[in-house]
């Protein structure tokens, strides 16, 4: 289910939040509206954590993570790190990494199995990513842009990339990521996909400027229409239970 929200009158919700399958991080805003939007969707299922990173509110672009772990930049304060470790579930490993490119959200795009990174990332950082997040790491560009984390957003079910991506690139990325990809826009024609939305396997949050066309594209590529958290359980139940009584 895709929802349209705003953070303090800005439609770039992917900048101020980070959504994964195991947790959700939200920036501290002036009013509680942003936080309550997430809470109403996700409260029972996964923890929604209010935080700042390096004293800023642009947490979505500074950190990268999936259900296995969370990577934060070197300028995260100790209190923030501690707060994150306390609030997130125990199986999520929170790791601070020393990396020159500190906006990890712009440099790394990942789901639970594969990650795409900035071409100039350190070798050690790549190893840490593979280790902490438990993913396969590929260095890639999207439509000629090296900031892969900004220009694409993908989950385990599908992905949305920069509208100028050529067909050959789209095929190549799709093969790497093993998910269906589509080129499209967000927030009424904006090309910066990951800044305008945040997505996990069953829900997505988009900026309020997103048109109906864009929303339908998102819902179809990320397969959100039928997806409810319980639906996953239902599928599993069908295979577990032999017969109805």
């Amino acid at each position, binding site marked *: 289910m895709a929802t349209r929200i705003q953070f303090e009158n800005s439609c770039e919700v992917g900048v101020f939040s980070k959504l994964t399958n195991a947790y959700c991080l939200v920036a501290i805003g002036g009013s509680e509206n942003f936080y309550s939007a997430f809470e109403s969707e996700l409260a029972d299922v996964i923890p929604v954590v209010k935080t700042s990173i390096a004293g800023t509110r642009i947490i979505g672009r500074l950190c990268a993570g999936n259900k296995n772990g969370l990577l934060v930049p070197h300028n995260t304060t100790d209190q923030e790190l501690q707060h994150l470790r306390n609030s997130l579930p125990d199986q999520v490993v929170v790791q601070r990494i020393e990396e020159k490119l500190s906006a990890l959200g712009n440099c790394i795009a990942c789901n639970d199995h594969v990650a795409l990174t900035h071409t100039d990332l350190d070798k050690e950082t790549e190893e840490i990513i593979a280790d902490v997040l438990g993913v396969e790491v590929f260095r890639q560009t999207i439509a000629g842009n090296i900031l892969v984390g900004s220009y694409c957003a993908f989950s385990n079910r599908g992905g949305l990339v920069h509208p100028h991506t050529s*067909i050959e690139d789209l095929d190549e990325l799709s093969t790497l990521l093993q998910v269906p990809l589509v080129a499209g826009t967000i927030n009424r*024609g904006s090309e910066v996909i990951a800044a305008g939305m945040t997505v996990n396997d069953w829900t997505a949050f988009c900026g309020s400027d997103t048109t109906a066309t864009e929303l339908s594209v998102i819902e179809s590529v990320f397969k959100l229409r039928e997806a409810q958290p319980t639906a996953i359980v239902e599928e599993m139940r069908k295979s577990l239970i032999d017969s109805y009584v």
Partner: protein
Amino acid sequence: MAANMFVVPQTQGTVLCCKCGILMAPNPANMCVTCLRCEVDITEGLRKHVTIMHCPECDCYLQPPRTWLKAQLESKELLTYCVKRLETDLKKVRLVNAEFIWTEPHSKRIKVKLKVQKKALNGAILEQSYVVEYVQQDHMCESCTRFQANPDQWVASVQLRQCVSHRRTFFYLEQVILKHDAAVHAIKIKQMDRGIDFFFGNNSHALKFVEFLGKVVPTDKGKRSQQLVSHDTKNNSYNYKYTYSVEISPICREDLICLPPRFAVSLGNFGPLVICTRVTNNITLLDPFTLRQCFLDRDQFWRYSFKSLLSSRQLVEYDVFNVEVVSPEYNVGGCKYVIADVEVARVNNYSKLFCVRTHLGHILKPGDRALGYDLYGVNSNDNELDKYIDLVVPDVILIKKSYEEKRQKKRGKPRPWKLKSLNMELDESSEEKMGLEYEEFLRDLEENPELRFNLSLYRDRDYQPSEIASMADDDDDVPSVPLEELLADLELSDVEDGEDSMRE
């Protein structure tokens, strides 16, 4: 490593338009053109209706604040004018194309289709065309109003006078004015006794003309007088008619002058009898016996304001019998002179032979005819001459060589060149005398190249050189205008009405 790397061919994919959902190629706005056009109107805030003023008498359009531009319907000038009226609007967008849409000629509407470009969202450049309608309002321009009220209305006039008995200066001045287009703004030009009157619609035009005159002929400063025409008590503004009175110095070329004693002394005992050789805005005086030259500018002249003793009407013909060169050739101010002793006698009185000194030794040969002043026989009533007590006055002063005989052979043969003339109202009474003087003036032009310097001579299209005796002409040494100096007459300049395309 191979120099040419394998580059994967890139085909552009398609995205859905974010508004209407149709497939399209991605563009900076990521909206299809139709949606973009609905979204953004780049002609917003631009004027679509403009009022322009048109003068029905002279078909001019007003460019505020005061310029009237003449233009035909559906012409390039009109298009430029219409686009210029929208200047403030067109600063915001970029103009790509402009053209007229046909409207009925008497509908008083002009329609112009403009195509403009502007940057829209996200850097996409959008192109759009729109129509601007101009409503023509009739309003007479100031000059037509003034003309309608009183056709003879002038605001400033310049009265140019010269107190001499011939009109040579005015013929010459006419040609100089034509060459420099100094009288383009004159409403009317009238020939008067001993002068010309110029009428202008604007005081500044008259002032400019007076200044121009000061540069080409030696005039005095000019006196101005004004006459009150009307007085607006509420605005405290006054309308005047201005009249400038300008006098040209009475000294002309080939005049014999006796300088006042004080003036001669101040110039370093410059021989009191001098000839005037050249008149531009300075007067050039030549002492024929010492070959000293002196220049007077107009301030100097008008301080002493002397008159000439004898002028070119009193020239008399002499036959030259003997020439004895006395001095080598001197170059005085560009002209060569040789002092010689000559024996001359008047053509109609061979009895008296005069032996005189002259400066024309370089061109006179025995058997020639020369023109000069007869001081032996003349009865001059001149104050200045009387002031000199022990002055030896020569009997004859020769001025120039005469080509009269040779001209007799060429009489009736046309000249290969012609002059233009100003649009003057002529004084009918003196037409015959004028014809003779004009002929003399043309001869003067032929003989003196320096006189032609400031003028434009035009090739006469109608001139056919006669086949008979063309050989004889070549041997003649009558001076004539060389062909290189003649200007080919442009077809356009034949239209000599006073209409300008720009009027204030």
